[in-house]
Structure formats: C-alpha cells, structure tokens
C-alpha cells in the first residue's frame, strides 16, 4: 500500500487533489481511497487530505499517520504545521515553491535523505501561467507522477479530463505536463550529483 498525505490551505484544492489522485489510480486498475481531514474547512485554514493506493481492497479507515509521500501545496505551512510527521527518511516530498530545500530551511533535516525523492515545483506559477488561477493542486499531481512513480502521468491527465472540461481542463493538463517535466529534470539532476559524490 502506498499512502499520500497532502497539506495545503482551504481554497487550494487539497481535497480535490486527493480525490483526483484516487481516480488516476482507479484508472490504472488499482484500489484507492481518498478522504479529507474532516475539519471545518475555511478559506486559508490548514487543510489535510489523504490518499491510499493498493492492489487489493482498502479496508483501513484511520488517518494516514505514516505516509510514504507528502505533497505540500503551501510552503508557508512549514512554519505552522508538522507537515513531515510520520514520514521516513526514504519517503517522498514534493513542495510547491520556486525555492530549494536549503532556501526553505530544510537543508539540515534532509541531509541523509534520498535527494532524488525530494522535489520542488513552482506549481502556483504554473497554474497562473496555464489556468490563470492560483490553484496549485493539479500541477502538483503532475509533479507527483514524476517523483513517486506510483502513477503514470497519462493517468493523471485522464483524471484531469474527468474532473474538468474545456479550457480549464486543457490548462491544467499543460500545467501538469510542465510540472512533470520539471520534476523529472530535478530528479535526474539529483541522481547525477549523487553519482558524482559516489
């Protein structure tokens, strides 16, 4: 079972992202369960949503406390919420930012983590560029397809098409593809650096 926890703020499409992730996994013939953190969601308040992906029926109903991957839709949460709670050192992190982990003050924390699994993508800028709205959730899903490798980018694109239509769908597909390419390049860069060190 692969477990994803998404952190963001009310209005950023956190719950929608988890739901679309589950749809993408379903489209690949897998079992998936997405659910929100059941808070009284308000615009701007911290929101958490979860997605489990497995090859068999998912019966578990507890919140995800030990995720395999974390998606952070809003980097300002780093100072407010313990977003990395329960994540192991071989876990995946994807943050919506144009900064690096060092610039975000996370350099020490991730020193002995697997760097090719830790990525950032300027999802807000991609959303503004392609969709015209500051909603980073869908480009992050594109990036997630690259970093964690549990889902194909094609499934994410299909899920976008099931959720949105017309211009919004096309814009989100473009944003997701660009995010996918950015994250792919970042990972290759991280691998190259690691090979140099070795």
């Amino acid at each position: 079972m692969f477990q994803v926890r998404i952190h963001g703020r009310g209005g950023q499409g956190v719950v929608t992202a988890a739901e679309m992730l589950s749809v993408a996994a379903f489209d690949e013939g897998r079992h998936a369960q997405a659910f929100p953190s059941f808070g009284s969601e308000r615009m701007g308040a911290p929101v958490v949503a979860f997605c489990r992906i497995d090859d068999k029926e998912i019966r578990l109903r507890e919140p995800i406390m030990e995720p395999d991957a974390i998606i952070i839709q809003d980097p300002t949460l780093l100072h407010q919420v313990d977003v990395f709670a329960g994540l192991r050192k071989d876990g995946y992190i994807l943050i919506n930012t144009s900064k690096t982990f060092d610039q975000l003050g996370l350099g020490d924390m991730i020193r002995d983590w697997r760097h090719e699994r830790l990525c950032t993508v300027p999802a807000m800028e991609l959303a503004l560029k392609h969709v015209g709205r500051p909603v980073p959730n869908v480009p992050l899903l594109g990036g997630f397809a690259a970093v964690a490798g549990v889902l194909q980018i094609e499934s994410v694109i299909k899920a976008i098409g099931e959720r949105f239509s017309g211009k919004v769908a096309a814009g989100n597909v473009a944003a997701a593809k660009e995010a996918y390419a950015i994250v792919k390049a970042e990972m290759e860069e991280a691998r190259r650096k690691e090979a140099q060190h070795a």
Partner: protein
Amino acid sequence: MLKQTEGSRAVAEAVAMCRPEVICAYPISPQTHIVEALGEMVKDGTLSPCEFINVESEFAAMSVAIGSSAAGARSYTATASQGLLFMAEAVYNASGLGLPIVMTVANRSIGAPINIWNDHSDALSQRDSGWLQLFAETNQEALDLHIQAFRLAEELSLPVMVCMDGFILTHAYERVDMPTQAQVDAYLPKYEPRQVLDPAEPVSIGAMVGPEAFMEVRYLAHAKQMQALERIPAFAAEFRQIFGRDSGGLTHTYRTEDAETIIVAMGSVLGTIKDVIDEMRQPENGGHKIGVLGITLFRPFPLARVRESLQGAKRVVVLEKSMAVGLGGILSTNVRMALSGLHMHGYTVIAGLGGRAITKKSLHGLFRQAEQEALEPLTFLDLDWNMVNKQLEREKAHRRSGPVAENLLRDVGVVAARNY
C-alpha cells in the same frame, strides 16, 4: 459498472435509481452532498418524475415526507446529528403511522459541545423510534442498503434509516460497483402502498387512540418490526441473485469460526478491525484466535443471530461509537441481552466519539488487553486522562471553574478558544 466516486455521490445515484417521487431535505453536514446531488438530478431532469422540496428545517423535512408518503409517493430524505434530533417528533410519527419513508443518516455526534465529526450518537438516539436501522460498512454497502431499504420499507410499511459514517464514508472517494437501472427495477417493484390518502376512497390516517387500544397498536408495531428479521435475509439473498454480491443481511462475521475473542462493532470501523485481526492472526504475530461480528441491522436487533455468532467465544468486546451517559454502552447493552445466561467475559469499549480516530495501533493494544482479561468492564479508548484529571482538579478547587469545553480547549491549545 465500477467507478471511483464519493460515498455521498454513490448513495445519491442509488437513491435516484430507486425512483423516489418526493425528496425533501434540509442541508446539514455531513449529509449535504447527498441531497445536493439529488437536487441537481431533479433539476436537470435525470431524476424524473420527482419533486424536490426545499424545506425550512428538518422538522419540516420529515413532516413533508410523512405527507407525501401518506399520499402514496415514494419518499426520501436525509439528515444527521442535531437535524435528526430536531425532527425527532416527526420521526416517531412516521413509524407510528407505518409510512415507508427511507432516510439516510450520515452519522455525526450530538452537541453540546457542537462537533461535526462522526460517531453513532445521532442514529442511536432514535433506536426506539420504531424505524428499522441499517448500518453500512463501506460505500458499496451504503448504496446497496438504500436499494434494499426501499424494498423492505414498502413491503413492511415501515420507515427505514440507512446509517453511514459521516465524512469517513460520505466524503471518501473509493471504488463502487454502480448497479444498472434495469437491475434496480428488477429488484424494486413499483410502490404499492398498504394505506393511502385517496380522494376516491377517503380514509383518515392518524387517529387519536386512547387506553382502550393504544397498547395493542404499539404491540403491533413491535410485531411488524420483528418481521424484518425474516424478510431481510430473504431480500439480501434476492439482492445477490440480481446484483451478484453479498450486501446487507442481519450481521456479518469475519474469522469467527475458531475465535476465542470476538469483537462486535458497527459501520466503517469494521474495516480497520478486520485489518487488525488479519495481522494478529498471522503465526509470526502469535496466531491470535480473534474475529469480528459486524452488526448490519441494529433495529430490530437480531438477538438470536448475535447469540448464535458469539456463544462459542470466551470473551466479547463490544467496540462502539456511542455512549449511554450514566450506564456505558448502547450497542453493548443490546449485545448483553443477546448473551443472557451465557457465562463469558464481556467488555464495553467506547471509541471514536466526535471523530476521534480509531487507529490500528490502539486496537492492537486493546485486543491484546482483552485477551489477557486486563480490560475494565467499561473502557474509553485513547482517553486523555491528563486532560480529564486537570479539569476534575479545577472543579474541586473552584466552584466557578468555568465551562468544561472551553477549559479543555484552552488546555490543549486550540487557537480558536484562546482569549485575545
């Protein structure tokens, strides 16, 4: 057809396939997505003929359902929590009048303190209202139970409440197998009321009954509800023939054949419990002889079936998301009645109130404690005793110690409760 969708959406589509003619509802979390979806289907014509009536309260919702059902229309509503309490008088009337209304209860706690999260307090507060009560374990079962509920309600001329865990199921996206309209039509015949307000053949429904016949009317309500114990297994069997899957019935057992410890629970927590049982049964984890009995039908309570399922065990742990203040458990009191005269250890565990997560980790510890007979008869799972004791100390020290909820929020540091 398999699809990945939200529990509320799946239930709304299943209800629509049952061809309700009147839907009246007032929005309340976590039920809202269900009636929103049905409202859209009525508006865009995919659910037709059907009248969607916006009402000004839950009391009105049930009152309208009573009227439309008495006039011969298949009637549906949905609610939760305080909404169910607000319609309580009409809830009793619906069953007393023998009207086959189907209502979803998206289970949520009852205030005060106000809390929007899941537990079973709302539905169980109406356990003696005369409605049949079914509890869904998954979204698949939730949508299947709605189809069975209309059949059952109309066959017995009694209202049926389908209970599904708020948020945990209503807001969860998961895989469901949506039936076809043809399958639902084959299973659910056109509504033929046993009593109807018809101008051509005028009758009155709702007479005042004095001491001369009231007891008899009440006895007949009980006798009629008890008929469900025989009808439900038959309806579930017929459901399997048409839809090709097991859903509904009185109870479900899981790995109880040789179990020395049997857990009893209702609703979505059964899934987490099953995962824990599978882990505990693995030889490398000690091969614990443990299983679970899931109660699908809470009213009428299947006493004989529960007794039969549990009598081979050494101990029974009832894990419930509800509480009878001043007594202990509600589900466990019912289970205890099924076990009258049997000598076995029985434990009541109150868990998950107001949305407190019920985790595998806590269940592992709990079930092992039960196996060692080390549980208190009444246990509150994952209760924060520091928080409780701090408040008790405060109350001892000061007569005017302040409102409990606000004090505890201040102790745990929830921002909204701080004084600025």
